[in-house]
């Protein structure tokens, strides 16, 4: 069980949250200019690091806000959580 720090509610149990994947993915400013490979990269390709990973979480059973977490995928250490 992870204890995840919601920036609004403080530390809560993992069961209150839902995972939203990698953080910081920007929608291309001009999608028409992208070729298929670049569009596929935006839609589907994600980092899968061994170590620190920036990810999105939603406090589904609490304040229902999305926020950004820095989590180590090996040790599960959460080193940072902040509002988007």
């Amino acid at each position, binding site marked *: 069980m992870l204890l995840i720090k919601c920036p609004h509610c403080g530390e809560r149990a993992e069961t209150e949250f839902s995972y939203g994947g990698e953080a910081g993915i920007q929608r291309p400013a001009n999608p028409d200019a992208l070729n298929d490979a670049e569009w596929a990269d935006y839609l589907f390709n994600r980092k899968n690091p061994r170590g620190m990973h920036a990810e999105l979480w939603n406090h589904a*059973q609490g304040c229902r806000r999305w926020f950004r977490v820095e989590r180590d995928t090996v040790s599960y250490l959460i080193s940072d959580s902040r509002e988007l």
Partner: protein
Amino acid sequence: MSEALITAKVLHDCGHINLRGRRNDAAFVAAVESVCATSLPQALTTAASGDLRIYWLGPDEWSLVTTAEKTAALLAALNGATAGMHVAVNDLSAAFVTLALGGSKVRELLAKGCTIDLHPAAFASGACAHTGLAKAGVLLALQHVEFRLIVRRSFADYLLQWLHRSGAEYGIEFV
């Protein structure tokens, strides 16, 4: 039968208004506070004024609970005071069931199904938290020694059954 260590009561006379607006919008905060005659509570706390209780739900969201009779007037007053502002004021009275829980063992009962720290030092009078209780999403608040449990109506029957069974060892009494 010995005295019940926990009492539970469904409060039928409640109206729920969901309020959303920007905390950093001074005009919005002033308008709401003048209608409610109390300050908008900060994170994880409640405010009370007469029959009205305000629960913090999120950084831009509050739940206002008053008597069923006063709900329409409060809704109209909030709509009037915040007219033209970037807000949402909605009457959600039909969506929720409110329970009052009291007694010496109520923290132990809630701790069976809840992951937040309910020790008196961590969850004192005036605290509120939206969390999970036996997998159901609930708003849990404490005013003096009485817990308020606000749950979506569709979960109320399930939660009452859970309270009935989990509270049996404390002789829970539904009044």
